[in-house]
């Protein structure tokens, strides 16, 4: 169990060596742990602005690497209440340069009256709407422009509102100077409303230890660095990437001590992957697998759902084209055979799920490779022993994190 929420941002600030204060909401039983944790990470002023009652402020996470949906679950969220103290108004904002608001369960009603006052002191205000924000109407009513709004493709508001990128960006017109859309393994896009320019920022492509809090670290690193425009977001991507490699704060800090001295040449040399959200639905993936009605297809379901979560377009040929059996006529068999071959031809990539050595799956691997398609084999039971099977595909792996990473590498743009 780790302290999460804004503590991810705290770890980034500590590693970057930035002076900072934290204003937070929490249940009383965590006050001591939070105080100790923040002191250990050089937080200067620790200000509790809201007392959480009704819920323990614990989030369970089914899957920590965002291979697919992570099923974040805030325990007793319907009972969650915040009793706001008056400390926010009393806080001295004149000493800061930037304020980052990370939305959790707070509705920010108690903060909104103060936003213009803070901004009038010449402070930049950024906000991250990646968590449980269902609509942004409350911000439209305050006649205020944030310096940056961060949001991610896993956020409730994004999933509810996104039709296409330009439409989505315009929802934030007059709300912010910059909109940063974080697209997990596909990188990020930054839209500058004053220049009307879009910048694509690649994500660092590698297997990870976890993805929890990586977005918050990205926010902090982009706000706190000295680089200009595109370079600062590329730097932020590198810092966020290091956070995903470890849960050990001292290991992370050691890495950042070196990274924060990178010059422009090294930052730009960190080539990564960009694959915008809406482009992924154009990537058709043929799932070669024994997807039969008499087979336990849980693993195939998992693979399919993970690809859909990332907005790819996976195809299950047996579900789409039909399943043959002993009663099928030769005509039916030929028809399905033709449809399956046609589907392989149309797909950009073949992903085989090797539950067992199904002849059809193995042939489809060879067929697709002969067509020069990218071929990946997910081998969860580690049964691939045959030489052809091991060396013909682009990747054979028991690790689905490695599989998803490879799919992004093969289908994304290197920037």
């Amino acid at each position, binding site marked *: 169990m780790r302290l999460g929420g804004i503590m991810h941002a705290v770890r980034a600030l500590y590693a970057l060596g930035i002076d900072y204060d934290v204003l937070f909401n929490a249940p009383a039983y965590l006050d001591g742990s939070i105080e100790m944790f923040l002191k*250990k990470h050089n937080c200067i002023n620790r200000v509790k602005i809201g007392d959480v009652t009704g819920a323990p402020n614990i989030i369970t996470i089914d899957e920590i690497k965002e291979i697919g949906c992570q099923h974040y679950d805030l325990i007793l969220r319907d009972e969650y209440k915040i009793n706001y103290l008056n400390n926010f108004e009393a806080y001295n904002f004149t000493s800061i340069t930037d304020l980052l608001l990370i939305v959790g369960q707070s509705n920010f009603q108690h903060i909104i009256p103060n936003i213009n006052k803070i901004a009038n002191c010449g402070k930049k205000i950024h906000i991250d709407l990646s968590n449980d924000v269902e609509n942004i109407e409350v911000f439209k009513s305050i006649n205020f422009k944030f310096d940056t709004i961060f949001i991610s493709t896993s956020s409730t508001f994004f999933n509810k509102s996104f039709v296409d990128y330009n439409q989505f960006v315009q929802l934030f017109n007059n709300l912010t100077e910059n909109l940063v859309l974080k697209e997990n393994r596909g990188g990020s896009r930054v839209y500058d409303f004053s220049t009307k320019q879009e910048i694509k920022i690649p994500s660092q492509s590698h297997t990870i230890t976890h993805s929890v809090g990586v977005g918050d670290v990205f926010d902090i690193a982009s706000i706190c660095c000295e680089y200009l425009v595109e370079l600062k977001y590329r730097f932020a991507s590198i810092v966020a*990437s290091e956070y995903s490699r470890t849960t050990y704060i*001292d290991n992370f800090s050691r890495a950042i001590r070196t990274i924060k001295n990178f010059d422009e040449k090294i930052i730009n*040399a960190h080539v990564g*992957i960009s694959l915008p959200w809406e482009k992924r639905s154009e990537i058709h993936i043929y799932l070669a697998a024994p997807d039969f009605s008499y087979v336990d297809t849980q693993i195939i379901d998992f693979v399919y759902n993970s690809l859909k979560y990332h907005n790819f377009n996976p195809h299950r040929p047996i579900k789409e084209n039909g399943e043959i059996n002993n009663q099928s006529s030769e005509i039916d068999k030929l028809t399905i055979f033709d449809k399956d071959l046609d589907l392989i031809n149309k797909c950009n990539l073949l992903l085989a799920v090797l539950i067992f050595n199904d002849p059809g799956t193995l042939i489809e691997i060879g067929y697709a490779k002969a067509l020069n398609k990218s071929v990946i084999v997910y081998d969860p039971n580690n049964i691939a022993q045959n030489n052809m099977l091991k060396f013909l595909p682009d990747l054979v792996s028991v690790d689905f994190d490695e599989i998803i990473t490879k799919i992004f590498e093969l289908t994304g743009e290197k920037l």
Partner: protein
Amino acid sequence: MGSTGTGHFSDYHSYDSTKTGIEGAGGSSSDDICLKAISTSLEEIEKCDYYFNHHNVPVFNTEVSIRFNSRIEAYNIKDNLTLGYLPTKYNYLMRCMKQGVEYRGIVDYSNDKPIAIINISLTPQHE
């Protein structure tokens, strides 16, 4: 029925996990990615100096190292020619090399038909 884990938050700076003896606890781990050996195929071999000069790939056991020169490239130690580039998943090596870690190794597989392939294995040499 007992409990596992530390029973408190332990992933903060300077927490000494040796006091609890619980693996995985604490603020630091001795596991350092920079000190792990690497085995990888190289990219863009045919565009690089070695292939351009020799019209072939280096043989098995050729001694190699890596350096940063707008990307991380592998080169053969004998004549300093670039063999190819490391895949982007090894970008973290830029940080490791800045921290003083060097990498040396050999070509452990190569072939030039139908396409040029070079696979290298490297081990870290820490200062």
